[in-house]
């Protein structure tokens, strides 16, 4: 009996009816169920952390939403630099979210499949740990570990690009044939060229600038110039998301925000020049969430008159953001601004292309998709398009777009894959296979070797 025959016939129990799709990010877990019978799979976004507020109360994962006072909150994250490192903490969070009786997304792993997205270029030891825990501790019925960028290819890529429109009779059969995926996330930014949903491994590049570094950089700038925010990174992250943008013309914006030489204040500095914004800080009593408003040069005097004779609580703390708004995300395009010896995203894309045959360049350059939280920064896509246009060969068409929802795009791709039973079955490993052939075999199968 040929091995293939034996395998197909005695494949054991029926495949699990639903699959847990997990994009286990460093900042948030994107999780939800998908399967052939599930019409519209929807993800939950769960903070992937253990957090402790200043009253020493510990929050696990999604219970962080119960926290009211984020001042001086500290985090422990099981995922470090994009890779799942600390299983003690991760197991606690997964159990809280998926396996406990009261878990929001409760499931029995024995009747569930798992698609787990990982960051590219993981250490083999960490991959082995991951496989062992998934099968030996949780006992999932079926398991697929693959690169996060890879899953994006199962989305309908061509509908993301607007012009030129395609004729309606063309339907896309996932995975996308050719795709250059830029994943700019919390820990780092990766560039992955994909052919038919499979990564070109030697062409994957990583830029060590991610959301965390941007937040920490903004924290440093604000602490240096205004209030000490070093214990409030959670708040600084909110400020970053609310105010930062990628500049189209860095030099001009810089001039707009300069205060001018001594004794000669520039008018644009006083009025804000259309760039300065005020962020009203929350005090976690009356105001639990900060907000942005346009810069008002007379705000301080107005407030003084308004609160005259009133209790202290009526005042508000305001941070004025000027060049911080655009110098922070600028690090994605010019990492050398803080002395990091790497080139910006556009050059990384080109460097990744340099390992790929020239004939594939037009295809990759015309299909650049950006996913990950940083893609939501205003102006990111336009700037990347501009820089790519300048670097790419003049004859090539350059199209850059962000996924419809950049944060859950990877998850969404996984959910599409999970609905296609045949594809998923051919890629995954069942628990029986793991028990028979061991973790080295599983690692080889997922490695495509």
């Amino acid at each position, binding site marked *: 009996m040929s091995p293939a025959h034996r395998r197909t016939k005695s494949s054991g129990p029926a495949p699990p009816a639903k699959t847990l799709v997990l994009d286990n990010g460093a900042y948030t877990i994107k999780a939800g169920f998908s399967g052939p019978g599930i019409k519209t799979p929807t993800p939950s976004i769960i903070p992937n952390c253990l957090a402790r507020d200043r009253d020493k109360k510990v929050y696990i994962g999604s219970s962080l939403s119960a926290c009211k006072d984020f001042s001086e909150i500290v985090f422990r994250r099981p995922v470090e630099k994009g890779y799942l490192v600390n299983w003690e903490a991760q197991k606690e969070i997964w159990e809280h979210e998926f*396996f406990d009786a009261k878990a929001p997304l409760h499931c029995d792993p024995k009747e569930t499949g798992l698609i787990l997205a990982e960051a590219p*270029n993981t250490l083999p030891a960490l991959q082995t740990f991951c496989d062992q825990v998934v099968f030996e501790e949780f006992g999932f019925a079926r398991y697929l570990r693959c690169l996060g960028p890879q899953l994006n290819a199962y989305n309908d890529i061509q509908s993301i690009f607007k012009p030129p429109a395609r004729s309606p009779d063309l339907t896309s059969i996932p995975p996308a044939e050719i795709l250059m995926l830029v994943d700019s996330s919390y820990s780092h930014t990766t560039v992955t060229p994909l052919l038919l949903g499979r990564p070109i491994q030697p062409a994957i590049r990583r830029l060590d600038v991610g959301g965390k570094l941007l937040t920490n950089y903004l924290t440093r700038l604000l602490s240096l110039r205004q209030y000490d925010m070093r214990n409030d990174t959670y708040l600084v992250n909110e400020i970053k998301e609310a105010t930062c943008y990628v500049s189209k013309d860095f030099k001009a914006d810089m001039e707009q925000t300069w205060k001018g030489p001594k004794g000669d204040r520039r008018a644009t500095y006083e009025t804000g020049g259309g760039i300065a914004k005020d962020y009203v800080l929350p005090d976690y009593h009356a105001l639990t969430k900060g907000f942005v408003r346009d810069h008002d040069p007379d705000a301080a005097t107005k407030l003084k008159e308004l609160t005259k004779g009133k209790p202290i609580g009526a005042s508000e703390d305001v941070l004025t953001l000027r060049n911080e708004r655009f110098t922070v995300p600028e690090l994605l395009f010019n990492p050398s601004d803080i002395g990091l010896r790497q080139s910006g995203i556009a050059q990384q894309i080109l460097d990744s292309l340099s390992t790929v045959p020239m004939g594939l360049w037009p295809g990759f350059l015309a299909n650049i998709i950006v996913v990950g939280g940083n893609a939501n920064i205003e102006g990111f896509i336009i700037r990347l398009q501009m820089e790519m246009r300048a670097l790419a060969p003049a004859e090539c068409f350059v199209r850059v777009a962000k996924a419809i929802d950049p944060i859950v795009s990877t998850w969404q791709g996984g959910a599409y894959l999970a609905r296609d039973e045949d594809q998923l079955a051919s890629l995954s490993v069942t628990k029986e296979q793991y028990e028979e052939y061991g973790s080295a075999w599983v690692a080889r199968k997922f490695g495509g070797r």
Partner: protein
Amino acid sequence: MNFGVREVALNSRANAAPGWAYVPDTGVNASVTALQPSSRKRARNQHVASHQETTAKQDAKILRELVALDRENHRDVSIPVPIRHRDNAGRVSHGKVTPNVRKILQSQKTFANHLSDYEALGSPLTASTALTQPSATIPNTPAARATPGSGAPHLTSKGTRSHKKKDPTAVSTPTPLRKVFSAAQLTPAAVKSESSTADVPMPDAPILSQGNGTIPAAHPLDKDPLLVSRIPGMPSQTEIDKLLAAPPLTYNEARGPWVEEDMRKPVRQFCEICGYWGRVRCTRCGGKVCALECLTTHQEECFSRYGA
């Protein structure tokens, strides 16, 4: 200090017990090198333009700041996993904890530990893959990268439509149209192993379609040497297969380079106080500021700081 004694792992498979790890003795902080792996030797040999030469002191400062930017919390904190009630109330039992899992759960290693373990011990697998890697895959080869000026990727000036037009001179392998997409095509190619039953029917090929736009009508001047469009030939099926089957790079290899072109550009300097262009250098510490006003602010602190 190890007094010149080098610890050699006798057993290459030695899986370190939780709580300790082999660490390559490079003399530099491991977490720092993980962040910016530029060995001293390379830094010395690297030829950089004069205006961005940094002193060792400034380098150290940059590294220190980068490490600070990589932190999760401002202070070192340890948040222990909350202790659960032992009575299994509301808790799914996953059966017995296997020795593997127990070891993994108890491990308190950080990513930097794992990375230095990997560098120190390596694995026979990666050693062999490093050898088989095609030379073109090694990063930092700007020569392979064609710039618009170098003329290598000379496609066509007529936009994308003409990409479909086959150039008579271009050497291109005829690639058939993609017809049906079978699930088998997605199987990671050739899961081959001695013990494996993985007799996965190797798909004929993941074949790239050539697009289905209409080909423009022929024109008498198509062959004109000035107007003819040259498109680089599509890689053949074997080339694509080889590309897709290539093993992943290691963590450090995948780190994006600082390309030569960017190295030549002057590094932008910013005022340490207000963030505007840094145009004036502090005579005491070498920090950059924008103008007199910020210089005064800077020097108030600079002159009073001990050991600066």
